[in-house]
């Protein structure tokens, strides 16, 4: 059945997809959080929904800790842990405002959450407690682990880098090199830097090392723009996902396209067909062989493109030609 390169997942969420994430060491399981207040676990080999649990309000992000533990949070401010084996959920704690981003940090075996209360909180999965809360300069919009550091993107284009080995203070404080609101941040698998996207069809490749030689390598490029009737429509770049072995990355935009880029050689490797709504979420599987594409209209425009309000999750089997640097 894997002969088809792309298919839709059956029984998708009933509202917009907010996040998709593959399990840490298999291409079989995919977590999906949604504005319909659910978190769903799909078996993409059999194309079935394995389980579903509810929040009280829309869920904005979900993360695997390991193959059997999922963490989710959203507008309800609460961080939930779900044990997939025992089908039981427990509440880890809360933010003062909605939780926007959840990341698992393998380096210290901890869960990181970033919220609209301008806090990043660190959670210990063994003793379900919050072990630290770190004030950020503004509302957290993006968060990504990068080795033993993590990068926080907030409103007003602030970027804060923290070192998990020393959380006494911020490691670096920067301003986004893009002129518009930060939309998504993802750390390179090689832990040297991160990719940051904005709402204005643009992506920046940044390096953590602040020496001039390293900083010389940083750059930004335009993407996810469509020219229609002599007006250039510029779309938010909603999602970024790295191919763990090739260090190439996919971006998904509200224009409905997924592009795959070779960040080191500044090349676009491929572009998929246009989806029927914006691409809201992306996730490569751990081995980079499968890409999950969450497609949803996120109220970017007054009317959905083409009047469509599609909510689908596409599973696409990608090949080396699409993902490997040439």
């Amino acid at each position, binding site marked *: 059945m894997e002969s088809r390169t792309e298919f839709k997942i059956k029984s998708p969420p009933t509202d917009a997809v907010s996040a998709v994430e593959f399990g840490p060491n298999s291409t079989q399981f995919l977590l999906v959080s949604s504005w319909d207040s659910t978190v769903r676990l799909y078996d993409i080999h059999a194309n079935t929904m394995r389980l579903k649990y509810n929040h009280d309000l829309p869920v904005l992000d979900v993360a695997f800790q390991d193959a059997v533990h999922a963490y989710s949070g959203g507008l309800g401010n609460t961080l939930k842990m779900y044990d997939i084996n025992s089908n039981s*959920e427990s509440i880890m704690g809360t933010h003062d405002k909605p939780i926007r981003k959840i990341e698992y940090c393998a380096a210290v075996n901890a869960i990181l959450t970033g919220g609209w209360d301008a806090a990043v909180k660190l959670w210990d999965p063994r003793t379900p407690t919050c072990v630290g809360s770190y004030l950020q*300069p503004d509302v957290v919009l993006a968060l990504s682990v990068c080795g033993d550091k993590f990068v926080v993107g907030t409103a007003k284009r602030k970027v804060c880098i923290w070192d998990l080995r020393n959380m006494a203070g911020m490691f670096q404080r920067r301003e986004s090199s893009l002129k518009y609101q930060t939309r998504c941040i993802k750390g390179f698998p090689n832990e040297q830097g991160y990719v940051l996207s904005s709402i204005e069809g643009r992506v920046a490749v940044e390096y953590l090392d*602040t020496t001039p030689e390293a900083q010389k390598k940083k750059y930004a490029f335009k993407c996810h723009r469509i020219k229609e009737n002599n007006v250039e429509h510029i779309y938010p770049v909603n999602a970024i996902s790295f191919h763990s072995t090739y260090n190439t990355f996919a971006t998904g935009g509200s224009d409905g396209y997924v592009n795959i880029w070779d960040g080191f050689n500044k090349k676009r490797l491929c572009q998929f067909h246009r989806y029927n709504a914006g691409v809201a979420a992306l996730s490569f599987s751990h081995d980079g062989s499968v890409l999950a594409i969450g497609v949803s209209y*996120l109220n970017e425009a007054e009317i959905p493109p083409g009047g469509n309000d599609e909510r689908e999750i596409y599973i696409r089997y990608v090949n080396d030609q699409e993902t490997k640097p040439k």
Partner: protein
Amino acid sequence: MQVHKEAIDKVPNSLPNRSNIEIEIYGMEGIPPNDAKEHERQRNGGRPGSPSSGEDEPVRKKAKPEGLLGSAPGAMPTGSNMMPGVMPGMAAHPGMPPMGSFPPPMHHMMGPMGPVGPPFMGPGMMPGMAGMPPGIQQPVSGASIPPTRPLFPSAAAVSTATSTAVSSPLGTDFKPITSVAGGSIGPVKPTFPAYSNADSNTTTNNNIGSDQKVNLIATTSAAIKIIHPPEDLSLEEIRARLPKYQRRQTQETRTVQTADASQQAAVLQQQQQQQQQQQQQQAAAANAAAAFQDQQQRQQAALNALQQQQQQRFQRPPQAVMVPASAAMPVSSVALMAPLMRPTMTLAAPALIHGGNMMRPPPMGLPPGKSL
């Protein structure tokens, strides 16, 4: 006319209105009277930027620093154009020494300018440069940074951000950082709380109540369109205000209750009541929308809405009876989250009052326009 044995009838590659080959200008002689007049007009404060005035721009810029030496920082960002412009500033330099407090601010200035200056400025320029801003420089050293920022973002970032402190210990290798990180964080700490306090204050302002303060996303020209709502909030923050994400929770709670208690009829009734209530809420919201422009009026409207809801609650005791049922929900977090969720407020009066200021009018103002 012949050039290189080829007859030409217009100046090749020229601006459309400058292709005339008849005009011969040598030095300042031979300029057509019309163009000379136009040039004079523009020099004397005519509008710049008209297409023909392109060549006149530098002249105008030169004139500015001459006249406005004191406020010259405004001219600083013009980069290489500075060269001619600064000359007069240097002429003024001999007059500077009488200012007793001159040397210290100069030191100050060298900080931010350091990375910027050398590439295109001769050493002789520096005094002239430093001579200009002292007036502003002294009170707040940071004040001089904003004008320079747009031109040299990276340089400004280096000078303003704490990364200067960080960059020195940072080698090409990451390992040494741990040992130094503590030291480098020293200077970060004092600045951060101040920043974050200010910032978090503004964000709370932004998020609660006063939506006028939210920045708008600037679009630069008519030929491009950023597909994003005008407010500079994330798509999720904007979407979260949709009424359905406030409402849903109550409905789902209710359905869960049905499942638990299997009281379909009661719930139906309740949903009707709830709908009624929503209609009333919307009516209140309409009121609120009418009074939208005025902050005080808005608050009052919200108060009205509060009162209405309270009255309603007293009229309908059955709903209060349902309160314990909500505890039967699988999710025990209701109490924790109550203050933020408007729907639960219909269940718990204290939460409603407590969360009063969370009930910002905008979500309520939305329904009349956007409700289905």
